[in-house]
């Protein structure tokens, strides 16, 4: 008899929430009850619903248990597995209706998605090639090698697939350029240097379905005439590296990788290169320099990698998600793929939905869906019912899209029009407690420290912009700062060498475009409307609410709070370091962030 399957999400999110401890306990408990012959525990890749992890799915009904702790395991085994009674308290609770839902397919977070690339993620065991093959894996490759190379490239062109790394260059065209380059030796490179803060799509695909990426690379290798491939993975992703290595080994054993694949005469070998921590290496020429063991600095294009890339040879470079789309196009046909999405943007896009939203996690939707649908229907709305202020799309290269544009369709061209860009797919929801000036400062600080320093517009320009934004956040902005930022920002965009500099000013420019009033409040009124900029706020004890319990006095690390028991406490602002410890411990919400005390005194 086939074993009943218990699926445990072992993506990085769930592992951080304690998935391995749950697995250990589950195995122990199954053993104790003599059930190891009846059930198998499979650790899958990311199931996407990281907010609710660790996740446990019990087949055949696919009952989903959320936030499972080791202590819950015993009840699940006794009740569900033995007694056949579900454990309702561990079901997902719909934040709107309060209803407990057992079937994960009925939860809005999953029901409203369309999963093509993530089809296998969180469903199969990523360390088993057999499970991938069972679900149609490597059929796309089998089909490709039976076709003419040009026909494969034509299919990818017709599918309308565009690069998922951010810029959206047509994938088929890139393949065509590499195919046409005249050389005996060519390379395929997979860009898995997912460096955007707030993005984890590529990581989840690599961890959850590594063979899909390999298959995409193999098809590309066959099409352009390459026999060697590299996967450049961020060093911060150890689990992805491990699963990729296992996948490569298995594919080699089974003959999907190696010499004379499917007796077609086509040979292909793949190796993994671990990055060493440099955001700029996501840029293709910098990435190639890094593989060759040099400082990861970009170089001017042309020549493009398609004509002169790795060790001077034609190189086709695509992103993880791009490659993971390819098997579907070959297996199901480009017509089916091109039917999904909009005129200019075909297929689906995966987003890492995070920030102040109820359901954080991995979301795959057809191109052309609106931001509203993603945030409200899939994401379950803004956390704590606060006000939706904006969504930051595309990380440090992207921009903020405000509430007024929440019905913008998500496709390459509409996002650019709104001043953002697709980027790799980070989508961070921000509410009225997030300061947009501070957010711009945050991104500039990031790009400034990651600027490789090769070209002055990026190296000097981002530093100057950052200094200006810091000044504004500190309440020392000047009247013409905003125009100055726009001016310098536009120059950096025009004159920088690579994509990092060309997009670095975007977070500042879009926040100025849509939230100019916040900048003005910082500069003219010296206030931070969101109450986030430390220099522009003070922690204030609300006399009406304070019962004088003394908790904040104990919590304060610098002894800035004083007061007798049962009398209202006071903060000495000469000592206060604004760490917020008092606000955190107060059980009566008597400590709030308010206007600086000095200002209030002046006003009085």
């Amino acid at each position: 008899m086939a074993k009943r399957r218990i699926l445990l999400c072992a993506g990085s999110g769930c592992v951080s929430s304690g998935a391995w401890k749950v697995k250990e306990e589950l195995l122990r408990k199954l053993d104790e009850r003599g059930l190891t012959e009846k059930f198998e525990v499979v650790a899958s890749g990311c199931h996407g619903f990281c907010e609710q992890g660790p996740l446990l799915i019990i087949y055949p009904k696919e009952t989903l248990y959320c936030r499972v702790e080791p202590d819950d395991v015993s009840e699940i085994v006794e009740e569900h597995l033995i007694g056949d009674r579900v454990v309702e308290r561990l079901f997902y609770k719909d934040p709107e209706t309060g209803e407990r839902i057992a079937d994960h397919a009925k939860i809005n977070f999953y029901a409203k998605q369309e999963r093509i690339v993530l089809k296998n993620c969180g469903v199969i065991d990523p360390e088993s090639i057999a499970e991938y093959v069972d679900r149609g894996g490597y059929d796309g490759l089998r089909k490709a090698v039976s076709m003419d190379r040009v026909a494969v490239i034509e299919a990818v062109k017709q599918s309308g697939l565009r690069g998922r790394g951010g810029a959206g260059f047509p994938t088929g065209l890139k393949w065509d350029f590499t195919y046409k380059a005249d050389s005996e030796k060519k390379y395929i490179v997979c860009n898995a240097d997912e460096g955007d803060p707030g993005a984890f799509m590529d990581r989840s695909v690599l961890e959850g379905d590594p063979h899909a990426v390999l298959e995409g690379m193999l098809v590309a290798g066959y099409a352009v005439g390459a026999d060697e491939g590299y996967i450049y993975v961020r060093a911060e992703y150890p689990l992805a590296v491990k699963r990729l290595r296992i996948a490569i080994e298995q594919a080699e054993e089974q003959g999907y990788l190696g010499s004379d694949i499917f007796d077609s005469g086509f040979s292909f070998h793949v190796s993994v290169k671990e990055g060493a921590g440099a955001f700029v290496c996501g840029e293709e020429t910098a990435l190639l320099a890094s593989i060759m063991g040099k400082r990861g600095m970009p170089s001017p294009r042309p020549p493009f990698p398609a004509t002169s890339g790795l060790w001077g040879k034609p190189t086709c470079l695509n992103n993880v998600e791009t490659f993971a789309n390819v098997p579907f196009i070959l297996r199901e046909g480009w017509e089916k793929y091109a039917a999904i999405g909009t005129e200019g943007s075909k297929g689906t896009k995966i987003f890492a939905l995070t920030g102040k939203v109820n359901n954080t996690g991995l979301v795959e939707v057809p191109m052309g869906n609106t931001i509203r649908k993603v945030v409200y229907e899939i994401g379950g709305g803004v956390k704590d019912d606060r006000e939706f202020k904006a969504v930051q799309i595309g990380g440090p290269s992207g921009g903020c899209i405000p509430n007024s544009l929440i019905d913008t369709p998500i496709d390459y061209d509409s996002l650019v029009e709104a001043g953002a860009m697709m980027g790799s797919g980070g989508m961070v929801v921000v509410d009225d407690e997030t300061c947009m000036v501070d957010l711009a400062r945050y991104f500039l600080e990031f790009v400034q420290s990651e600027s490789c320093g090769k070209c002055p517009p990026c190296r000097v320009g981002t530093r100057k912009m950052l200094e200006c934004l810091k000044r504004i956040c500190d309440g020392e902005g000047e009247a013409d700062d905003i125009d100055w930022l726009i001016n310098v920002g536009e120059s950096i965009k025009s004159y920088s060498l690579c994509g990092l500099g060309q997009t670095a000013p975007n977070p500042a420019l879009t926040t100025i475009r849509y939230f100019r009033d916040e900048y003005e409040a910082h500069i003219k009124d010296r206030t931070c409307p969101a109450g986030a900029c430390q220099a522009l706020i003070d922690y204030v004890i609300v006399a009406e609410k304070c019962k004088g319990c003394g908790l904040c006095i104990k919590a304060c690390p610098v002894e800035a709070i004083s007061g007798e028991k049962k009398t209202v406490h006071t903060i000495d602002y000469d000592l206060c370091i604004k760490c917020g410890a008092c606000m955190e411990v107060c059980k009566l919400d008597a400590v709030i962030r308010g206007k600086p005390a000095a200002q209030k005194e002046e006003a009085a």
Partner: protein
Amino acid sequence: MSESVQTFDGAKLNAILSRFVGKPGALIPILQQTQDEYGYLPREAVRRIARGLRMPEAQVYGVATFYAQFHLKPRGRHIIRVCLGTACHVRGAEMIFSRITSALDLNGGGTTEDLAFTVEKVACLGCCGLAPMMMIDDETYGRLTPKSAMEIVNGYLGETLARAS
């Protein structure tokens, strides 16, 4: 400097270098494995790698300082990496970082004098669903508050104190 040359154990490095003889693009993996072995990149190791690869020492140094992963100074026994990715940032990661660093007397991060801890910011650890989060060595801790983060750090602190006494 002469002292470190004398105390430098070159056998492990030689083994690493021998694995990469004649392979192109070997410098970064060599540096990675050297750092895994020694905990950081000692000056003498940089010198010997340059000699082994027949390239100027400046070039090795240039690559080692370009990437955030490489360290030229000894590191703490526990590495606390506080994530300051976007999702963590908007959920208050800066407060967590400043709370930990002020408790360990490390303004702005760095390594404690007794080499017990290194505290640093990282851009994104890719667990944004659990923001704000941090990693201590290979353990990940999510959904933090400044208070819960300190409790976790205190756990490690207690362990190092116990070892010292």
